[in-house]
């Protein structure tokens, strides 16, 4: 046990078991061997008995004269007469006395005889007739050899046929092996997971199905982890890049303050430092939210009414922007299964976007049924809108529109897009009826009741 588990890598390759084909051939050979032996033994027993019976039947006592005549015609016969006074050999060697009527095997002078004793033609006389068993034994041995020969041929034939047929039977397995050997560990996310097929036997098909299912699982798993890895890497790069800008301003300002302690515009510089610091903070918050949303299936889902979502978002907006007029439309009575935190954050970002970059004085929150059966939440503002050509691009991370006002992280709309994607929908930027920008956050039909 210990010694086996201590086998070191690089040692001799593990001994391969015999091939399935060989095992099938051996099995069929072995099975036929058992049959052949049984049949052979039985045949041999029956043959011996039959030959002995024939011999016994030939030992029919008759008159000594007849017997003498008969015996003289056959060299293998011996006849001995026993009277009350004398014993007389009619032919052949003298045979011993055997129980009357029962055929018996005896050895006479080194020769095996089958003898039978019967009452003679005259009372008091016993006739013992015997025949050598050589012929019979030779015949039996002959037949036995024949049976043995046939048996060997049958076993060889069975093994050979087993080998042949097993070859056909294991062909699907061979195909399966060949296919599995061509699979490499690399997973290309753009390519569907490979499907293994091995039609021909139920076992191989089941094995192929199991293998395909396992590959699909592996593929999906690897794809997920690759996506997470990419997301994390992009996130880290973007975060570094994005934080450097306000940090540059901060560092410059601090150096100025250090080099010119009596600067008249000291207060203004300090305000700038504070603003840059706030930017760093806001960017970090947005990055954190973005990272949380990137995690697969993060957070729990709540079943909430659309009206409640809008009401909460409106409260958030009024709290964050006291000067902003917030109007809530009467929404359809629908229940949606969503991450409430995520949706509130997305809607809050839409409102911030309207105020900060649109210069909006009022926003209108609404909802309507989507074309696909989902629900569309809308945030309309009366701000300066966004050129149609930029509407696609600003949904990307760290992209700011040309009309963007105060500095932002460039992440607000990206956060909304992320939440929409998380809820099986998408974000669209359109012209609002009120003249500004409309942010439409669609929620997929499978999330809407």
């Amino acid at each position, binding site marked *: 046990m210990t010694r086996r588990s201590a086998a070191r890598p690089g040692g001799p390759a593990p001994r391969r078991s015999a091939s399935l084909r060989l095992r099938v051939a051996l099995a069929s050979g072995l099975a036929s061997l058992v049959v052949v032996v049984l049949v052979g033994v039985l045949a041999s027993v029956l043959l011996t008995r039959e030959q002995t019976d024939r011999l016994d039947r030939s030992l029919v006592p008759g008159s000594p004269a007849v017997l003498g005549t008969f015996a003289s015609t056959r060299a293998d016969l011996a006849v001995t007469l026993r009277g009350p006074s004398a014993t007389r050999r009619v032919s052949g060697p003298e045979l011993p006395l055997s129980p009357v009527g029962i055929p018996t095997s005896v050895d006479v002078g080194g020769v095996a005889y089958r003898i039978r004793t019967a009452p003679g033609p005259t009372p008091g006389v016993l006739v013992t007739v015997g025949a050598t068993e050589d012929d019979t034994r030779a015949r039996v041995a002959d037949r036995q050899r024949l049976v043995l020969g046939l048996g060997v041929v049958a076993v060889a034939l069975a093994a050979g046929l087993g080998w042949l047929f097993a070859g056909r039977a294991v062909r699907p397995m061979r195909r399966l092996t060949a296919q599995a050997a061509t699979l490499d560990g690399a997973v290309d996310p753009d390519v569907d997971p490979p499907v293994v097929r091995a039609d021909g036997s139920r076992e191989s098909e089941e094995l192929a199905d199991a293998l395909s299912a396992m590959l699909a699982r592996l593929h999906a798993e690897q794809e997920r982890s690759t996506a997470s890895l990419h997301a994390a890497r992009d996130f880290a*790069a973007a975060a570094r890049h994005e934080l*450097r*800008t306000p940090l*540059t301003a901060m560092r410059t*300002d601090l150096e100025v303050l250090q080099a*010119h302690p009596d600067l008249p515009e000291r207060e203004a510089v300090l305000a700038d430092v504070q603003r840059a610091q706030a930017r760093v903070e806001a960017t970090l918050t947005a990055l954190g939210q973005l990272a949380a949303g990137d995690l697969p299936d993060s957070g729990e889902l709540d079943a909430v009414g659309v009206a409640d979502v809008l009401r909460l978002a409106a409260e958030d907006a009024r709290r964050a922007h006291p000067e902003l007029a917030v109007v809530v439309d009467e929404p359809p009575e629908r229940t949606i299964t969503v991450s409430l935190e995520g949706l509130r954050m997305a809607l809050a970002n839409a409102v911030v976007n309207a105020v900060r970059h649109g210069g909006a004085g009022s926003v209108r929150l609404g909802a309507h049924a989507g074309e696909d059966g989902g629900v569309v939440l809308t945030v309309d503002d009366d701000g300066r809108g966004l050129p149609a050509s930029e509407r696609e691009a600003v949904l990307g991370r760290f992209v700011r529109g040309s009309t963007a006002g105060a500095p932002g992280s460039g992440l607000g709309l990206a956060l909304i897009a992320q939440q929409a994607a998380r809820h099986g929908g998408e974000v669209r930027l359109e012209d609002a009826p009120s003249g500004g920008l409309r942010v439409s956050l669609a929620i997929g039909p499978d999330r809407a009741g």
Partner: protein
Amino acid sequence: MSDPAAPDLLVVEDDADVRASLERGLALSGFAVRSAQDGPGALRAVHERVPDAVVLDLGLPGMDGVAVVTALRAMDHDVPVCVLSARDTVDDRVVGLEAGADDYMVKPFALTELVARLRALLRRGVRPAPSAPSDGDVVAAGPLRIDLARRTVHVGERSVDLTKREYELLVVLARNADVVLTRERLLELVWGYDFATDTNVVDVFVGYLRRKLEADGTPRLVHTVRGVGFVLREGG
């Protein structure tokens, strides 16, 4: 700030906070600062009056910093350009400097460092190079021929197109053929940085030179002497 002798500096940066900070910081450091927030604005400012030096953010929206450098050099403006990058990947440095910028700094950087480098670059800009060429002056080393009067470089029969800073680096290396020059010495001779500064700009430019000189399979001329610096010589 009102000093008429103050060098005219153009700061091109799209981020309002950074732009304001740089304007203030550089002005307090004795420069006359103008600023632009995008590429076209920068080119307009240059067209108005050619500045003595340019501080250029690479990550401008629309026309980016590389395009601005390329346009400046295409218009034969030789002003020193220091690019600012918010990324620390080598690629960004390559594109900015390859287009003809003289130096780069990665955000966030020390203002004093930027000021020191700008002053050095400006000194080099007004003062004739220590090796002012006279007509017919030719520096040759192996297959390399530098015509100082025409500012042309040939490797064998092939003409090699170099940016200003690449050319100056090559001239210094060729004039000192077989002499190992440290990075510090090269920074001083080519960039005028006679102060300690933490930059690998020499390595980046040596990389460009090698790529251009060895484009057709010419054996390496500019060799790295590990732990010391660089030397131009034929063979190993």
